[in-house]
């Protein structure tokens, strides 16, 4: 339901953000982080991409890698993917650092760790859990991969538990499953556009998560809502324009009408069928750079969130 949905993040320690590709997932992630930082909280954004984008969104030149780096006031960012993450992971489990280093220097061993399914995913989740437990941050925001891979990640603690029943990894995955299942401390946010396909996929993903994962989708952020008032009839002067501009004006009107119509329909479908809370972010037409966009989205988000 829309209207009475306020995202209460006062006790949230872990905010997982995902969505179909191209819906503005990273920008919304950045906006959640900025909103929390503005409220005085110490925030860490974890990225899981080979090409991290968070620093650029904040207009920072920091090279974001495995160790958290400051990208904005009270906001650090880190990338939990890659061999450095693998090394830190193995350090946690193997008593001898020297053996681990030797192992990772071995070409064949590296190949195995890179290519064995599920290994890098375990490493990434483990790192996120480490940051939550460290106490260095009040809130950890994770810019998850797009929905398909995000589901695999969310399932991982359960999958691993089925496959590995004893050992340190099993214990760790269980602990992680507990954090993910704690609805007070963890939130899963799904970002979507109000267009037909993303809305359909969002509803399907929400149902899939509800059936297969302990962490339900708490909030659906409807990003880029292009609602505008468009007159039903074409203004008389448009017909008098030269052919070029006339076509462009007509197209602009048709486009605006189409946008409004499509977005209202998408919104109505989500209101009718989604179980999670809904919040809307208007389409930001004017933006000078990435950070001005993040700022505008943060402002729009502010009315929906309590920190």
């Amino acid at each position, binding site marked *: 339901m829309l209207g009475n949905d306020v995202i209460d993040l006062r006790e949230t320690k872990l905010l997982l953000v995902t969505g179909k590709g191209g819906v503005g997932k990273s920008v919304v992630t950045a906006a959640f982080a900025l909103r929390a930082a503005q409220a005085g909280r110490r925030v860490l954004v974890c990225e899981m991409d080979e090409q991290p984008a968070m620093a650029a969104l904040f207009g920072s030149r920091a090279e974001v890698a495995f160790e958290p780096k400051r990208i904005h006031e009270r906001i650090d960012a880190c990338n939990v993917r890659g061999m450095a993450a693998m090394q830190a992971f193995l350090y946690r489990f193997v008593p001898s650092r020297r053996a681990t280093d030797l192992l990772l220097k071995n070409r064949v061993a590296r190949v195995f760790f890179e290519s064995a399914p599920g290994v890098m*995913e375990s490493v990434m989740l483990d790192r996120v859990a480490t940051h939550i437990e460290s106490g260095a941050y009040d809130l950890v925001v994770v810019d998850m991969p797009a929905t398909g891979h995000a589901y695999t990640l969310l399932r991982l603690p359960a999958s691993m538990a089925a496959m590995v029943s004893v050992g340190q990894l099993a214990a760790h995955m269980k602990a992680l499953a507990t954090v993910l299942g704690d609805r007070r401390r963890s939130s899963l946010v799904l970002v979507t556009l109000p267009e037909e396909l993303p809305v359909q996929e969002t509803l399907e993903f929400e149902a899939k998560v509800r059936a297969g994962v302990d962490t339900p989708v708490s909030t659906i952020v409807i990003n880029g809502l292009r609602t505008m008032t468009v007159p039903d009839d074409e203004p008389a002067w448009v017909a008098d324009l030269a052919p070029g501009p006339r076509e462009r004006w007509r*197209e*602009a009107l048709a*486009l605006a009408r189409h946008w409004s119509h499509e977005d209202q329909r998408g919104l109505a479908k989500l209101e009718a069928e989604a179980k999670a809370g809904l919040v809307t972010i208007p389409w930001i037409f*004017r933006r000078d750079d990435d950070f001005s966009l993040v700022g505008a989205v943060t402002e729009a988000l502010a009315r929906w969130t309590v920190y």
Partner: protein
Amino acid sequence: MASVSELLFSSRLVVCVGTGGVGKTTTSAALALRAARHGRRVLVLTIDPARRLANAMGLASLGNTPQAVDLGAGASGSLHAMMLDAKQTFDDLIRRTAGSEAGAILGNRIYQLMSERLTGTQEYMALERLFDLYQAGTWDLVVLDTPPSTNALDFFDAPRRTAQMFDESVMRWFLPEVRTADSSLWQRVFNPGAVVLKLLAVVGGDAFIAELSQFFEAMRIVRASFQERGHRVQEILRARDTHYVLVASPDARRVDEAMGLHDRLREMGKSVSACVLNRAHTEFFTEDLALMPESLDPETALLRELYARVVCLAERERAGVARLQQVARHASVVVVPAFTAPVVALAQLDRLGEALSQ
């Protein structure tokens, strides 16, 4: 520089690459349809099409086998479409290559986990299926829609990673009888396999190791076939009549991603022949605002605001197109205007195909 039309005639394989949410699947279908309309026998292999796209092609649902699309009377070419089922493809491959061991592999928990849930399997299997279909000789052109992925290029790495996964030197760690054959001094002093096993036992427990060993033992039988096919897929991906089409939109962030993909493809020795920028709103100009009447009534103000917003969008998108053109100097860049009507029938795919070939 070849136009998109020329590509559709000269290629045996067109690979559509791009990040999610830019209309890659629809573009793949439109390109395939366009080639079929010009007399070629075409197959479009998609990963996860929206049901509506399947419906647009007149198919109630897509499956793991090619299905004929009805092109209407008098069509000289043909179009087939299919959707990849990674699990099904993997199981079929095991059944075909593993003989009497197939049952044991299909029953192994690690195999099940790997084939169903874990990242990367879809990529391996798309290429596996591509190999069969490409070799079949039934089609003049295969259009491959690559899986949406954070890192869209994981895809091209899949054969290498598959081959590595079943690399003999890795497998031998888990296979006792091969392990004892190692007798060099180096192997006795530092056997990476022993270290890995010990480590995995600490991390995962002994039962995990047992299952993993069983998995590798079973997979050894199919390994040769995997590696052989992996190499041949790489050859197909490098072939002269294989072309890469980069699909994006003129939105600044999508252009950044596209530029990154373009450069990384080049580093991999795969040059992009064409870039498609979908859903463009580039044809609106500030000057048009001066043409509206000087009036202060609220409706005119509203319209002015509305058009000004669209111009904002258009200016940003034109800048995006220009940036991509700079980077992709050797590719033809096609800007496809946003259609307000969704693709619900073949006619709309035809229209998109026309826009793509201009």
